[in-house]
């Protein structure tokens, strides 16, 4: 079947599977089978660390199997429909329906419609109440902390660190399946496992105005779900061999998780809250894993992944160690995002040992007042010192992240972003060595504040789209005189919908389904996203997007 389809699609290499490092187990020889489903394309999904961890955790068990699936692009999906071919796994190429469990990862609210899309391509009812038997549809990841908009589509949510709970759940499913238990019995048993939320047994309550007022748990199921947490990162199930995609993926490098959690407590940051507490992996373990991964993959870069790697207490000596070990093999070490107050000349000298990948700093706000409001404990001087260090080490391009639409923000705070850029530019010019010819570039990435659940700012409504657009216009005015500075913004309607879904309750479950039926999918992609269809979907159920976002 494959060749005929592959000949007719764009970038067929993403569908072929069988990559170096992929696991191929004998289907008949195992008892429990899960497919990990990433609700976006292969190129994006293969950069996801969570998938690799869970893939490893399950495949490590001889009697269990984990395969992968992704969202096919339109051309492939159309051909599959034409041939009556259901969505398949990348390893055994079996239909998703053949598995005991389908595990979606929730990275981003804008991928929700893709979950429905994949379920439909797999021939599985979109509404959990219409399903019979297996597979169970489970979902975990950061968005599972507000699962309600997906509560009609997902049977079981996994809250917290997933490395052991997926295996535990799959074992339970196998055991009960073999004992002849019904779907409902399996779900009921799952509800007793700490860290699992089974929406079937929870009924949302609404007040007389139709506003959500609380959740009623069925008899005997836990009233409160406590997240799963891996206490010591040295006990992780990190894969020594990583799957090597043939095609270019978003992060084409070794992904090495350095620590989990961040104690900074920035008030807008959901990851900073939900991944607490901070758990650092030992440098010895990291070195051992780095060695195995470099040997097993052949990547030229090791990405040290965490919410804030520069905060890792051993970061400088560890990077010196990695650089001295790997430099002669042409392998560099990269820090994907950097805290300006933890970035030093020492660190700068280590980050650019082999090749100068870009540097990104996130001051988040332009004025000190605003940075204090969001509890981003960064001083202007920290940023200046970091920029000075970077440019004196030969960097010529940096990226600065800012957020607009934050609580208590005024136009002066927007102007302060421009002022800050002006000062940064002056420091860059002063510190750039004379022998570096390349022009200085400062790229601003400006996103709109999205209130997220479990954060101190969760009840702060988002600015209206008009306010956000006005602030964007004003910021453009402010940086216009600065030639080497360029600005790119996040799309305002996308941010608005993100806010609505991030805070929405179960009333959004049918809205989501309607949006999907109206044709919404790949909503995180500008070329697919259609705000009109979403407005229509909300309206059909008597709501507005603004009502949930603001």
């Amino acid at each position, binding site marked *: 079947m494959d060749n005929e389809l592959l000949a007719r699609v764009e970038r067929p290499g993403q569908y072929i599977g069988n990559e170096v490092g992929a696991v191929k187990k004998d289907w008949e020889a195992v008892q429990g089978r899960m497919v990990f489903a990433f609700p976006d394309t292969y190129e994006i999904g293969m950069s996801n660390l969570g998938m690799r961890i869970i893939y490893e955790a399950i495949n490590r068990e001889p009697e269990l199997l984990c395969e992968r699936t992704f969202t096919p692009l339109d051309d492939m999906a159309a051909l599959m429909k034409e041939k009556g071919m259901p969505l398949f796994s990348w390893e055994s190429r079996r239909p998703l329906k053949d598995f005991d469990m389908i595990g979606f990862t929730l990275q981003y609210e804008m991928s929700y419609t893709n979950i429905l899309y994949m379920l439909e391509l797999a021939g599985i009812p979109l509404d959990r109440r219409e399903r019979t038997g297996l597979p169970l549809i489970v979902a975990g990841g950061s968005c599972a902390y507000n699962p309600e908009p997906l509560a009609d589509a997902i049977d079981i949510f996994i809250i917290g660190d997933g490395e052991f709970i997926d295996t535990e759940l799959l074992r339970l499913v196998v055991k009960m399946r073999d004992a002849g238990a019904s779907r409902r019995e399996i779900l009921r048993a799952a509800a007793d496992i700490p860290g699992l939320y089974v929406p079937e047994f929870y009924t949302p309550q609404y007040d007389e105005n139709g506003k959500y007022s609380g959740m009623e748990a069925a008899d005997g199921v836990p009233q409160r779900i406590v997240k799963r947490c891996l206490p010591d990162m040295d006990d992780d199930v990190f894969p020594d061999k990583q799957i090597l995609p043939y095609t270019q993926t978003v992060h084409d490098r070794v992904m090495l998780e350095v620590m989990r959690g961040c104690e900074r407590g920035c008030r807008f940051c959901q990851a900073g809250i939900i991944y607490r507490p901070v758990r650092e992996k030992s440098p010895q373990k990291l070195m051992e894993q780095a060695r195995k991964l470099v040997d097993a993959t052949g990547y030229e870069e090791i990405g040290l992944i965490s919410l804030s790697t520069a905060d890792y207490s051993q970061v400088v000596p560890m990077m010196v160690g990695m650089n001295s070990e790997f430099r002669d093999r*042409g392998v560099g070490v990269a820090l994907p995002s950097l805290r300006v107050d933890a970035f030093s000349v020492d660190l700068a000298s280590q980050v650019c040992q082999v090749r100068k990948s870009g540097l990104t700093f996130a001051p988040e706000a332009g004025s000190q007042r605003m940075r204090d409001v969001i509890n981003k404990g960064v001083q202007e001087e920290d940023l200046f010192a970091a920029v000075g260090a970077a440019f004196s080490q030969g960097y010529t391009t940096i990226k600065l992240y800012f957020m607009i639409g934050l609580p208590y923000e005024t136009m002066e705070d927007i102007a302060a972003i421009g002022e800050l850029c002006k000062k940064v530019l002056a420091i860059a010019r002063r510190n750039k060595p004379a022998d570096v010819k390349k022009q200085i570039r400062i790229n601003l990435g400006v996103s709109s504040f999205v209130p997220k659940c479990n954060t101190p700012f969760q009840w702060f409504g988002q600015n209206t789209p008009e306010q956000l657009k006005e602030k964007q216009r004003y910021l453009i005015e402010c940086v216009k005189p600065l030639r080497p500075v360029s600005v790119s913004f996040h799309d305002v309607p996308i941010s608005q919908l993100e806010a609505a879904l991030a805070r929405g309750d179960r009333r959004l479950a049918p809205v989501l389904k309607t949006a999907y039926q109206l044709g919404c999918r790949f909503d995180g992609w500008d070329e697919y996203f259609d705000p009109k269809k979403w407005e229509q979907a909300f309206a059909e159920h008597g709501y507005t997007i603004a009502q949930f976002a603001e």
Partner: protein
Amino acid sequence: MDCREGGCTGCGVCPALGVKNMLCSDDPARVLPPADITSRMKQTPPAAAVCRWRVRLAVEGPLMWLSHLDLLSTMEKALRRSKLPLAFTQGFNPHIQMSWGPAHPVGIYGDCEWLDIMFGAPITVADLDKLQAQLPDGMRIVEAREVDMRAAALMAAVNYAEYRLQLTDCDMAQVAEKAAEVMAAESWPYTRKLPKESKTIDLRAPLLKLMVEDGALVFACRLDKGSAPRPQELAAVCGGKLVKVQRSMLAVATDDGGITLPW
């Protein structure tokens, strides 16, 4: 200020989960000795090339669906895993020194693709087994020979390609007739659709051969005489639908008709 330095802020996570912040700096066994940054700054410059190996490569099976760039990065990763003494480009961003012949088009298999790999130390042909061991199924070293460091680049040397096309939905006798017609013509204008525009090319000029052979449509062409025809274009002209395309040879042609492999 956060709770690692400033004391507990009472967020409630630790008591609720029964876990604690776990910092390496709190555990002497997990602390690294302070690093001497200055002494480590002396880098050995990446190895420069001392020898050059020319590899004839087969690309088969599902790997034929990879783009040229994908093959390139797959080869790079395999080279690093092989631990052979690679040579790197000199400069800010050192890269493995390797250069390929004509690009591999998506969806085509064959066993006569070419690339040059530079090494930073002498190697033997047996050492290349280490590279083969790291290549995925579907990428196979057919043969490799050391060539002169100053030999012409593959992109300049390789100017001849041969393809075998398996067709369906057609009468091969008619295909053969059409092929003969094309070959007999002085020129064969064809409108090539590009992503943004269309342009008219002459399919005939680069063609050296177009005929039916063992049930397949076979063609040979020069790569340096105008735009080389593409398999799907000749299939369309000859009235067949493509099933499978093999690039059976990439080689060096001289104007007197001689054809040799680029050794």
